[in-house]
């Protein structure tokens, strides 16, 4: 065989591969994907006993991520309360497709439930659908998968609650009057922008008429930039009474600047942060209160939801109720969504009870 035929063969094979993809025109407009959700056909029995010895897999976005480590402790607490066997596993990188192998493995291991935070809503969907067709109950938390690929999604808090608690905290800290500013993440951050919009409507209410939002600055979720933007806000607005930073990076940088400046104690700061990064600023009086949902409660509720699904107490349909241990009763909302509840507020009094 000479060079030419060999290469011709290869090119033919590659074109054969192309031909394998089929014939007839399929484009976005002609394709009609029938969206039928698998499962959910059986009726829920709210009085069914919680099964014991359930096998549940906990799959975070990536392992060794502090946020998910805390969520995992909550999941572990729930598992021991209901005598389930919890297995935590996961990829070391948070790329879109890295969780798929672990989803397939959970199905192979004949687990009863899978509790996961999806790296990519769509990339995990085919694997989740296959796993569900094999009897696995799927609960997403923190970050949802495509709704037709999971049974229940446990949302940390609604955008409205997150916005409302921040407005309430800044009103408390400033005494309800004066100029305030927002230090956000990036200008196109989906979550932050949604919260800021709702905060603006909250501020427009008569109860908050004393507060005036003078500027929204963007620290790009970068420590250095957020630090400089805080400095800029204080110089540009000498009458500034408070800063709201709805991002964990921003609030920590702003707190660091305030605590070492003349504005300490004069300009209030609040927003969303983690207790470990904010502890010393709460203790030294720079920050009176800030908020975040408790990831361990999130893991706890998600694990209970998986067990309730596997025990037949719920099927993921709207309006079904189940008891989630210490957290009390929850009702499944629209599109199979559960909401953990209002964010937890952290103050000098309770901050030492949290470690994340």
């Amino acid at each position: 065989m000479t060079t030419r035929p060999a290469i011709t063969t290869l090119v033919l094979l590659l074109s054969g591969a192309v031909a394998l993809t089929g014939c007839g025109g399929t484009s976005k407009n002609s394709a009609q994907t029938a969206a039928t959700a698998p499962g959910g056909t059986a009726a829920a029995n709210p009085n069914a006993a919680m099964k014991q010895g359930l096998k549940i897999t906990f799959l975070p976005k990536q392992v060794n991520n502090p946020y998910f480590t805390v969520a995992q402790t909550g999941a572990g607490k729930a598992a021991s309360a209901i005598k389930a066997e919890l297995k935590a596993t996961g990829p070391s990188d948070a790329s879109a497709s890295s969780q798929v192998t672990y989803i397939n493995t959970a199905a192979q291991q004949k687990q009863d439930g899978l509790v996961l935070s999806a790296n990519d809503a769509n990339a995990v969907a085919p694997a989740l659908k296959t796993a569900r067709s094999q009897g696995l109950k799927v609960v997403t938390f923190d970050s949802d998968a495509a709704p037709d690929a999971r049974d229940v999604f446990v949302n940390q808090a609604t955008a409205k609650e997150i916005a409302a608690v921040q407005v309430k905290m800044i009103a408390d800290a400033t005494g309800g009057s004066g100029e305030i500013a927002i230090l956000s993440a990036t200008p196109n951050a989906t979550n932050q922008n949604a919260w800021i919009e709702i905060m603006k409507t909250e501020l427009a209410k008569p109860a908050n008429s004393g507060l005036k939002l003078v500027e929204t600055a963007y620290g790009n979720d970068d420590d250095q930039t957020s630090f400089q933007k805080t400095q800029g806000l204080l110089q540009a607005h000498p009458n500034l009474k408070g800063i709201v930073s709805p991002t964990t990076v921003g609030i920590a940088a702003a707190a660091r600047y305030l605590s070492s400046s003349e504005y300490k104690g004069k300009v209030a700061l609040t927003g969303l942060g983690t207790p470990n990064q904010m502890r010393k600023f709460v203790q030294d009086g720079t920050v009176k209160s800030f908020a975040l949902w408790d990831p361990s409660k999130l893991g706890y509720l998600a694990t209970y939801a998986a067990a309730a699904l596997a025990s037949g107490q719920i099927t993921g349909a709207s309006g079904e109720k189940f008891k989630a241990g210490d957290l009390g009763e929850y009702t499944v909302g629209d599109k199979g969504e559960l909401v953990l509840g209002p964010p937890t507020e952290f103050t000098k009094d309770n901050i030492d009870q949290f470690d994340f």
Partner: protein
Amino acid sequence: MAERLRGFARWETALVLLLVLVAIVGQLRTGGAFLSSGNLFYLGLDIGEIALIALPLTLVVVSGEIDLSVASVLGLSSALIGELWDAGWTLEMIVPTVIAIGALCGAVNGLLVTRLGLPSLAVTIGTLALYRGLALVVLGDRAVADFPGSYTRFGTTPVPGTSLPYPILLCAVLAIGFAITLHFSSFGRSVYAIGANEEGARFSGVRVKRVKFILFVLTGATAALAGIVYTFRFSSARADNGAGLELAVVAAVLLGGVSIFGGRGTLGGVLAGVLLLGGLRNLLILDDVSTEILTVVTGLLLLVSVLAPSLTTRIRSSSTGRSLS
């Protein structure tokens, strides 16, 4: 020549023995789940893209070159599929277009290496960043996921009546083609000749630049094909798809017994290498071994694969009392 073949037959025997060992240990540790048809199907899916790209890359490495841009070509191909699909193109148009662009990416690598005489390591580290960057330009951080089930089923369901994933079927067909090319054609003999001694090959009338150029183009086209497989398998077109996959492919090729210095290696060995890395990973995950250990084991295997051939060569040469100049 005969001695060289014998030496490598030994490395490939070792790989097959290791595979058998993994299979036996797997069966015992998981109570039979490891070799169940369901798990073998997932294993096949997981190694599909790596096996595809490893085929042409084997030839590239045998010729003494390397292509680290393969995973970025995969990402670019995935991003293009998403963008063109959004623009209303038919998949029958998208697939050949994307493969052609993959071939073009390979051609750029090939031209830079052969015409400008730059080292392929440097060139393809550059295009690794370049093609990934282009993928981000094309699709940004968006994800396109509304592909029809009639296509995504090629990536999520087995060939009817078997537990064979479609990507593996595709890979098997291409593997036969590449094996014939590498082992039973004059083109393949020139690939070995170039890898063993480029100067010598040139003086013997081998068109070195042309051969290398063709290899890079084939690699680009196959990486784009792997991008199509990847996109349908996850039904998600994203610019960051397959990031870091080049290391898994290079690892499999080296573990398969291909010398990083060129001139040696077989396609069969590489396929065994792909299967061994994939099988071991699958087994460790199925057996609930932590991700950290998984990374350590993969790293050690890679080191062994690079060390073992050079050690055996050294031992053989010292035992026969001949030194390698």
